[in-house]
């Protein structure tokens, strides 16, 4: 909600000077803190020409990192959607003891920093971890391999879909679904014909946020992946590896692809926020 009259229109001259001073300060600070770093990423990635940029992107290890990151995103997305919907349905449509506690548990990953999540996973699945001996006996490899990366990414991204869908389902109430039930619709029919059309934009919004996070996650993945070149290195980890190799332009080339994804996410976010409200 915006005030009906722009306050500046009625303000005396001295106020207006303060106003432009504050706007100028805000713009200048944002320019230095946010805009310049953003522009700098592309500037540096392309600083040695497009041919070098393309060469950096097509380097086998970077290509593999892009592929691995895509695999992680493609596997985690449907899981996040399904669980997000299930959790939102459970909490919005039923009352049961422990409902609040469950909600707290679902949102817990937001309060635990990703790097600590990675440590937790290592303490669980690591060689001396809680399940370490069992896994070693069964010759199951979770850490320093794809399953570990997927699991820890699921931890970090798990609250996103539920957080967008749940408030919407609670606000809409369940009258429509109950009406469908009285008319003899099956559970699946109710979900597909009544619930899903109502929540689709929030669902998409949650999916976008979760996927963006899955693609960009660094801390949690860095602990469990082992960062084996050309094997378990995701794109954000590849940036660190190239940086440590002092291949700065290569690091910025890899970073620019993630930045492009981030900008697309921002545009989608703006569009979807308009639709969900």
């Amino acid at each position: 909600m915006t005030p009906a009259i722009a306050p500046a229109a009625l303000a005396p001259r001295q106020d207006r000077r303060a106003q432009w001073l504050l706007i100028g300060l805000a713009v200048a600070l944002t320019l230095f803190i946010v805009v310049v770093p953003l522009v700098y990423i592309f500037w540096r990635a392309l600083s040695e020409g497009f041919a070098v940029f393309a060469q950096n992107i097509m380097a086998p290890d970077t290509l593999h990192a892009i592929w691995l990151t895509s695999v992680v995103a493609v596997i985690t997305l449907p899981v996040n959607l399904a669980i997000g919907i299930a959790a939102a349905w459970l909490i919005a449509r039923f009352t049961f003891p422990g409902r609040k506690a469950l909600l707290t548990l679902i949102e817990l990953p937001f309060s635990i920093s990703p790097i600590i999540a990675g440590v937790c996973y290592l303490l669980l699945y690591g060689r001396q971890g809680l399940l370490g001996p069992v896994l070693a006996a069964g010759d199951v490899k979770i850490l320093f391999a794809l399953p570990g990366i997927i699991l820890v990414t699921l931890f970090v991204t798990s609250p996103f879909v539920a957080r967008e869908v749940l408030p919407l389902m609670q606000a809409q109430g369940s009258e429509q679904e109950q009406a469908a039930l009285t008319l003899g619709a099956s559970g699946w029919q109710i979900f597909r014909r009544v619930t899903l059309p109502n929540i689709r934009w929030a669902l998409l919004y949650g999916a976008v946020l979760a996927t963006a996070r899955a693609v960009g996650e660094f801390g949690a993945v860095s602990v469990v992946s082992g960062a084996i070149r050309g094997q378990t290195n995701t794109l954000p980890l590849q940036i660190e590896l190239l940086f440590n190799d002092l291949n700065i332009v290569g690091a910025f080339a890899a970073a620019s692809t993630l930045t492009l994804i981030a900008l697309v996410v921002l545009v989608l976010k703006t569009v979807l926020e308009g639709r969900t409200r």
Partner: protein
Amino acid sequence: MSVAAVTGFPAGRQKRVLPGFGLTMGLTLTYVGIIVLLPVIALVLKGAEIGPVRFWEIVTAPRTLAALRLTITAAALATVFNAAYGLLMAWVLVRYRFPGRRLLDAMMDIPFALPTAVAGLALTALFSENGWYGQVLAPAGFPVVYTIWGVAVAMSFTSIPFVVRTVQPILEDLEPGQEEAARTLGATPWQIFTRVIFPAILPAYLIGTTIAFARSLGEFGAVIFIAGNLPMKTEIASLLAVIRLEEYDYNGAAAIALTLVAIALALLVVSNWLQSRLTRRRVPA
């Protein structure tokens, strides 16, 4: 919105009319159990295994203390900056109309959208001695990269949106009546701000800064690029936990991680308490 719409149904009578209770309950519990709860339990059990004496030894060891001190000090510096910058941005974006306002508003989401490793890389290059910012700052006797200031810069970048985005909606919803009354009574703009507006946005402002502080404490990706990670000097606590893991010192890692989780949960409790105060005050209005 009625209370019934928020909480679902009055308990008892209409409960579980809709299908899917067993299915969604089973799915959610299994998933949350395996993905979220089990790893956290592993941390707590590993921590309990250590015993209080050894736990205290680990946490008060000079290197751990130095890492915790650096993390908390840098996070505090970052939060002081974000508190000032965030309030300025929220104010300018809500109260003034000027060309480019919506773009400026969109810019506030960049630090969240950008992966932290990308932010760390860009900030490190900009602030390094031959970078655009470092060229000016380093000769002026203000080196940023590989110092606590670098850690603070990285932390503040990644937590920029929290203060802005929590204060903005409250500022938008403020009723103009009180301000107009104050103006009619001859209050100066500064008086109106400090006596009328600021008290009204204070709870939200505190929530925003608390979350920003918590996020700064937990920041890893952006920090490790710019910090240089020198033990005892610019090594953050979460990195030390990872280093302990790599040395197969699981007890050391668990103790440090548990300390960080405890701090994060304490901050969460503070912010929830502020939140409950905020909603209690806003409901009757």
